[in-house]
């Protein structure tokens, strides 16, 4: 094997970098995870198998007329993740249901110490979301079967 003179190469690279002055900031991957964990969790919760497991693991009350609705199933998955989440406060960004936008951006929780309190507030949010879903259901023109979220 021929020597590639690694240390010399690194020294040259460092000199070269020094000449470039102050570097621009580069977003950290961990920041993206934090910013998006709940909105991606919503999208990711659409996987059929995972949804099935969620149903088995945790019962979140949803009125019977909404059972089987893909959006409600997604919300349930989201709520489960929120309940088990350790990172709060959190902000949920917009999620898209076909061409209709369900705006979760207003859901923002302050730091809460007790799980019971957290669940109570979450249940209120579920009720709010269900109302939004009902409105969407009432105006379903583009998506008659209520399935097929992105």
């Amino acid at each position, binding site marked *: 094997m021929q020597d590639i003179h690694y240390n010399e190469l690194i020294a040259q690279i460092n000199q070269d970098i020094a000449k470039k002055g102050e570097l621009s900031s*580069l977003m950290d991957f961990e920041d993206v995870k934090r910013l998006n964990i709940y909105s991606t969790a919503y999208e990711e919760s659409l996987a059929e198998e995972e949804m099935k497991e969620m149903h088995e693991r945790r019962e979140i009350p949803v009125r019977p007329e909404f059972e089987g609705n893909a959006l409600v199933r997604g919300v349930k998955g989201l709520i489960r993740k929120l309940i088990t989440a350790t990172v709060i406060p959190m902000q949920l960004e917009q999620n898209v249901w076909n061409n209709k936008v369900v705006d979760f951006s207003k859901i923002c929780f302050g730091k809460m110490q007790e799980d019971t309190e957290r669940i109570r507030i979450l249940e209120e949010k579920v009720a709010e979301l269900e109302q939004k879903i009902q409105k969407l259901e009432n105006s379903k023109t583009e998506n008659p079967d209520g399935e097929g979220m992105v």
Partner: protein
Amino acid sequence: MKIIQLAPGISFGDAVGNDMLAMKHILDEMGIENEIYADSIDDRLPVGTAKSAEQLPNLSKEDAVIYHMASGSRLNYIFGNLKCKRVMVYHNITPPAFFEHYDEYAYEQCCKGYEELQWLADKTDYCLAVSEYNKQDLIRMGFTCPIDVLPIVIPFEDYDKEPAENILTEYRDGYTNILFVGRVVPNKKHEDIIRAFARYQEYYNPKSRLILIGSSRKGNKYKNRLIRYIQQAEIKNVVFPGHISFKEILAFYKVADVFLCESEHEGFCVPLVEAMYLGTPIIAYDAAAVASTLHGAGILMDTKDPMITAGMIDKLVKDEELKQTVLDNQKERLADFTYEKIAAQFKELLREHVL
């Protein structure tokens, strides 16, 4: 005597599957009666390549089972309770922590794998580890039987096939192509490749492209987050070709100027050897088995600083003398992975420990 190769699954074209088929070929050459059994058998393999593990025959004390271990499986317990000679080929298990926030199933499988590996520590007569790193893993898990290192057998004749012409034409367009090949899973650290590429593109070469080849399951959370990262950090020219043919993979190696690996866990890392064979100069971060697979070839980095990695990509692309040295070293290392050399080693180890 007969030798049975056993594995939870045998797939078409993956490292474990190729290793099993190569071992079968060597056992056939030695005139030893042998068969492959697995729980899951890839449909793309020729009919009769392997039988269902449910049909595992009765074995005498003189027979031997070569078990290919890489995950949690019911077969770990079946192997551990066999009364014949028990030989394990250890391909490594990814540390579960990598999957913790992304894939519950993979996380649990890896946890189970480690528990079962530990259970097998005093129930295995002989081990073959595909790298020195894997050997040390076995020792850490409490294995006291003899352990030898035998690299994975790679069917190089497959790599002499014609690469896909459409990829060669499309990607030989004056852009500098940075390539990584590997499943889109968190231990491969695609985010670190993307960060280094972002710096290279911004500070050294805007006319550059990152190609990330590798399979991923539908709904892969890690890949979704990588895509979000690329979008939010506004990094341009990052390509996930998705499911592509072998000829297309060959073509991507051919058009690549640098193979960049930032993986933090590899039991061997077959793509490094593929890059060596196909003449793509390698830059790789020193983690797990990467250093032992390179063994002085490529450029082994002791830092993940994206700016320094970007600088190294620039050096390798622009400095013809450096590039030639790297390629010469890779060619020299490749000689250690020839079928003839590994087959001879395997035969010798079998005679010493199994036959």
